C-alpha cells in the first residue's frame, strides 16, 4: 500500500533521514521504533509532505506522492494523527472531528463518518460539545484518533500516541489502536514505548539516527537481544 524508497529529508541543513526504505501492506500494522531523535516523527512528516522530500520516492497504492502538496495527501487515503495530539483547543470535540472530514469526499459522508467514530469511541459522543482543550490527555488522544478516522482513510499514520500520558492511560490508548486495527485499517505507528507497541503490530522497523537498522516480525524484534538490551532495558 505505502512504499518508501531511499527517502531523505531534513530541516534546513540538518538531515533527519538518510535513504530510508520501507513498506506497509494493506491490512498490516507496522511500527517504526527507535530512540528519541532517530527521525521517527520526520518519517511520518515526510510521508504527509509537511516537510520536504529531499531524495527518494514515496508512493501510495502505486500513486507517487513525490509532487503532491501536503494538503492533498489526505485525499490519497492517508490520515496523519500528529505527535502531541494537536487538537484545536478552543473548538469542541465535534468541531475537531469535523475538521478531520474537511476534504470534499469526506464532507459528503460526514454524518456517516461521525456516527462511525461515535460508535467506536462512545466517550467522544458524550463529550461532543466540550472544548477539546479542556479534556484529559487520554480523551484528547481518543479525539485525535477519531479526527484521523473522519476522512475515511485507508492508512493511518500515528505519531507517538502514548507520549506524555500516564501509564494507566497508555494501556487504554493501545487498546484504542487495537480497536482501530480490528476495524480493518492499515496502520503505520511510530513509538518510543517499544514493548507495548510491538504487542499491537505485525512487523516493525528499528530506526537509528535516520537509518533503518533492523526490521522483522514484531515478535522477532521483541525477542532480539540487542533490542531488549538497548530499548526495553532487560
Amino acid at each position: 500500500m505505502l512504499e518508501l524508497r531511499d527517502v531523505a529529508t531534513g530541516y534546513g541543513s540538518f538531515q533527519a533521514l538518510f535513504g530510508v526504505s520501507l513498506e506497509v501492506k494493506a491490512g498490516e500494522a507496522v511500527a517504526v521504533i527507535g530512540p528519541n531523535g532517530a527521525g521517527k516523527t520526520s518519517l511520518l512528516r515526510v510521508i504527509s509532505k509537511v516537510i520536504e522530500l529531499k531524495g527518494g520516492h514515496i508512493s501510495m497504492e502505486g500513486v507517487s506522492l513525490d509532487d503532491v502538496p501536503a494538503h492533498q495527501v489526505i485525499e490519497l487515503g492517508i490520515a496523519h494523527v500528529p505527535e502531541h495530539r494537536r487538537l484545536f483547543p478552543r473548538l469542541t470535540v465535534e468541531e475537531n472531528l469535523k475538521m478531520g472530514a474537511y476534504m470534499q469526499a469526506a464532507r459528503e459522508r460526514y454524518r456517516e463518518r461521525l456516527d462511525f467514530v461515535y460508535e467506536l469511541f462512545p466517550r467522544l459522543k458524550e463529550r461532543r460539545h466540550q472544548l477539546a482543550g479542556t479534556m484529559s490527555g487520554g480523551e484528547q488522544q481518543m479525539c485525535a484518533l477519531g479526527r484521523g478516522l473522519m476522512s475515511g482513510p485507508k492508512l493511518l499514520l500515528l505519531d507517538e500516541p502514548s507520549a506524555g500520558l500516564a501509564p494507566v492511560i497508555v494501556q487504554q490508548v493501545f487498546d484504542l489502536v487495537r480497536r482501530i486495527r480490528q476495524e480493518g485499517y492499515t496502520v503505520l505507528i511510530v513509538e518510543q514505548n517499544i514493548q507495548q507497541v510491538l504487542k499491537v503490530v505485525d512487523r516493525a522497523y528499528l530506526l537509528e539516527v535516520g537509518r533503518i537498522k533492523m526490521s522483522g516480525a514484531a515478535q522477532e524484534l521483541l525477542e532480539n537481544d540487542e533490542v531488549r538490551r538497548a530499548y526495553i532495558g532487560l
Partner: protein
Amino acid sequence: MEFSITDPFLWETVIQGLLFGGVLALLSLGLNIIFGVIDVVWICYAELIMIGMYAIYFLYADYGVPLPLAFIAGILTVALLGAALHHFIIRPILHTEPINQLLVTGGVLFFLQGFATLVFSVEFRNLGVSFGSFAAGDMFFPISRMLAFAVSLVAVVVLWLFLKRTFLGTAIRAISQDREIMPLMGVSPQKIYLVTSALGGGLAGLGACLLVLLYDIHPAIGLTFGPITFMVCVLGGLGNMIGGFIAAFIFAEFIALGGFYAEVEWGYVMAFVFFIVMMFIRPQGIMGSKS
C-alpha cells in the same frame, strides 16, 4: 445642565449611540477576522471602505445602476480588493517581521488616498438618497441609521452562523489555533487566507454600503473611521470578534452621550481617554487573552 432619566432627548441620544454602535461593530468585524486568522493588521482597512463608497456612488449617481445592484457591486469590488491586497502585497511578506506588514498596509493607505484624490478629486460627494425619519413620541431617528443598524446585526449573525456551521468557517476558526497541522486536515492555509481576505474585504464593502447612506464621500473619509475602528478592535481584544462587538457599543455611547452633554468632539475625547485608561488596566483588551 440637569439630568433626567425621563428626558426623551437623553433616550434619543442613547438609542442613536446604539445605532452608531451597530455600524462600528460591523466595521470592526472585518478588521478583526483578518487579524484573528492571518495575524496581519490592515492599516488601510478604512481606505478600502472609501473605495467601496466611491464605487457605489459612481455606479448609482453616474451610471444609473439601481442602488441594490450598486451595493452588491460595491461589496464585490472591495472583496476582490481585499483578496488582491493579500495575494500581491501581504503574502510575499507574511513570514517576515510584523512591522513590515504594518508599513506596507500603511503604504497602501496613502496610495489609496492619493489615488482617490487624483482620480476622484477632493470634492465632497453625496449619494442624495434619503429615507426620512422615524418618529417615536418626541424622539426622531433617521431611517438610514436604523437600516444600517439592522443590516449590521444581520451581518454579524450571518457571519457567526457561517463560522460556526460550515466546514470553511470552522477551518477559519481552527487555523488561528494551530496553523501547522492544517495541511494534515486537507486544508491549504494559503487558500483559507485568501478566502478570509476576501471575506474581510466584503465586510468592508458592506460597511461602505451603510456609510455611503450616512456620510459625504471624500478621499480622506477613511481617516474619520479608520482610527476608531482600529481602537474598537484593540479595546475588544484584537482578533476577538465578540470583544470588538461590545467595544463598538461602548465607544458609540461615549461619543453619543458626549455630544448630548457637551459637543460631539468631547464625546470623542472621552472615548479616547477611556481607551487609554483601559489600555493601562487591560492591555490585552476586554475579551483578549494575554499573549
